[in-house]
């Protein structure tokens, strides 16, 4: 993929298919990321804006997602309140329902509310982190009750107990979850495709799919687009993979 992305335009579609570029060329990246001349006019694929959109959307939905789901997961594990067990059962049961069932009515609701074609409409559904709540709950169950009770006896408020006692212990879980959420948002395709109509708002996968529909024959250009989409998340994953994989390994044993 990387090699082809550096080939001069058209080289990958010569026979026999070359495995190495005849000369290393940056023109695909230039065209993709900066601009391209079509019939004498300049044309922009809007990949850089899409990249920034994706980054922003993924960052916001990760931060908001964590703020919402981590306290909830803790509450479901350690705080006694009426209706907790029933709600928990409901959450587990709802995992069976595929998200697509909700998509069509959700689109209509958002349309009434004027959220279609906005980032609020894009991000809001990703915050309903049922899986994340259950994930945090599972991890929090391992924290001994005595620790929490001791802090309460010392006069700490419930908020303080959570922030100063529980949260530090959950750091590895939170990092794992953050990575899950970021990657999930970065790679999401169907919902952004539905909810975003305006090219200026496109996230990266939607923008790449749009180019793929129009420029199927430009192998080198598409490879450059794939590189731009893949490399950032791959780097993020490689730097944090220790958390990610151990989180996954630990979670699945209990699962």
């Amino acid at each position, binding site marked *: 993929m990387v090699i082809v992305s550096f080939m001069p335009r058209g080289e990958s579609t010569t026979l*026999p298919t070359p495995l190495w570029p005849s000369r290393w060329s940056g023109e695909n990246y230039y065209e993709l990321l900066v601009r391209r001349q079509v019939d004498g006019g300049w044309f922009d694929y809007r990949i850089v804006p899409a990249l920034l959109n994706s980054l922003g959307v993924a960052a916001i939905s990760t931060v908001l997602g964590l703020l919402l789901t981590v306290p909830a997961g803790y509450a479901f594990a350690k705080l006694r*309140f009426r209706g907790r067990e029933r709600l928990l059962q409901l959450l587990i049961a709802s995992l069976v329902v595929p998200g697509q069932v909700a998509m069509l009515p959700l689109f*209509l609701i958002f349309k009434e509310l004027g959220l279609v074609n906005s980032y609020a409409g894009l991000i809001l559904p990703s915050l*309903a982190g*049922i899986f994340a709540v259950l994930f945090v709950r599972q991890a929090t169950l391992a924290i001994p009750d005595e620790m929490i009770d001791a802090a309460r006896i010392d006069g700490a408020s419930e908020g303080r107990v959570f922030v100063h006692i529980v949260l530090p212990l959950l750091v590895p879980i939170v990092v794992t979850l953050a990575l899950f959420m970021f990657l999930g948002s*970065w*790679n999401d395709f169907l919902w952004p495709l539905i909810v975003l109509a305006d090219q200026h708002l496109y996230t990266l*996968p939607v923008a790449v799919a749009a180019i793929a529909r129009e420029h199927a024959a430009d192998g080198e250009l598409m490879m450059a687009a*794939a590189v731009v989409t893949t490399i950032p998340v791959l780097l993020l994953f490689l730097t944090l993979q220790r958390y990610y994989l151990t989180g996954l390994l630990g979670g699945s044993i209990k699962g």
Partner: protein
Amino acid sequence: MTRQERAGWLFSGPVLAIIAFVFVLPTILALGLSVTDYSIYALADWANLRFVGLGNFNELLSTPLFWRALGNTMLFATLGVPMAIGTSLFVALLLNDATVRWKPLWRVLLFAPYVTSIVATAVVWRFLFNERFGLINRALAALGVAPVDWLGDPHTSIPAILIFVTWKVFGYNMIVFTAALSAVPGDLMEAARLDGASRWGRFRHVTLPAIGPTLLLATVMSVAGFLQIFAEPYVMTLGGPAQSTTTVLYFMFDEGFKWWNLGQASAVAFILFLMILAVTIVQTRIGRRQEWL
């Protein structure tokens, strides 16, 4: 209300409210939508909305493309699940062997595709599958196989997409299986070996019961995943050639957001939901019988 009770609601309330709003409410509405003729006319003016009862479902059953999509989706699931689960279990077993070196490296390398964007990797694989210039055909040519028009031939389009999907999801199941395999009791394995159990016998009687629950969970998730295939055909083949890769979800998307037949599309979504539910129930039954749950 006790202090804990207040804190409990304060902590869990916001996310529960969002879940109710973007998930529970729309799911209930979907049922309502599926018995109306909600279309582009109703989108313009609510007064055009009519109740059609089971009309949408009736109409779907007489739509050839719907049956085609249903068949394609079933084909994806019945071929894809064993393929994805089988290869990842096999590699997890290989990697679990004590003689393998560089385990963490292998794990990361094989897991990497899972975190990449479907759209970007589908673009790459579309290129690899190219009839004239793709590397796959070039490799086959070296073996003396005539070029295959992978994505252009209705007979090979599903296998081609399946190869891509298996490559993509493979790492996730592999990690899950690795976790399960590390919990297989070592002394039991040793005892079986001393009793002269064959490799297959040890797998069948020691490993399999130990990883049973994980295997079941992975299968349930994979079936659900394969029944929801959408982005792959959308990017690679646009549902073609000859509608051979139009899946249920692809059909729903086209029906809903291309033709704006939202009532009809909701009916499709519901059928997909019932399919997933049915398969899950059957699988849990099997799991119970095997005492895996």
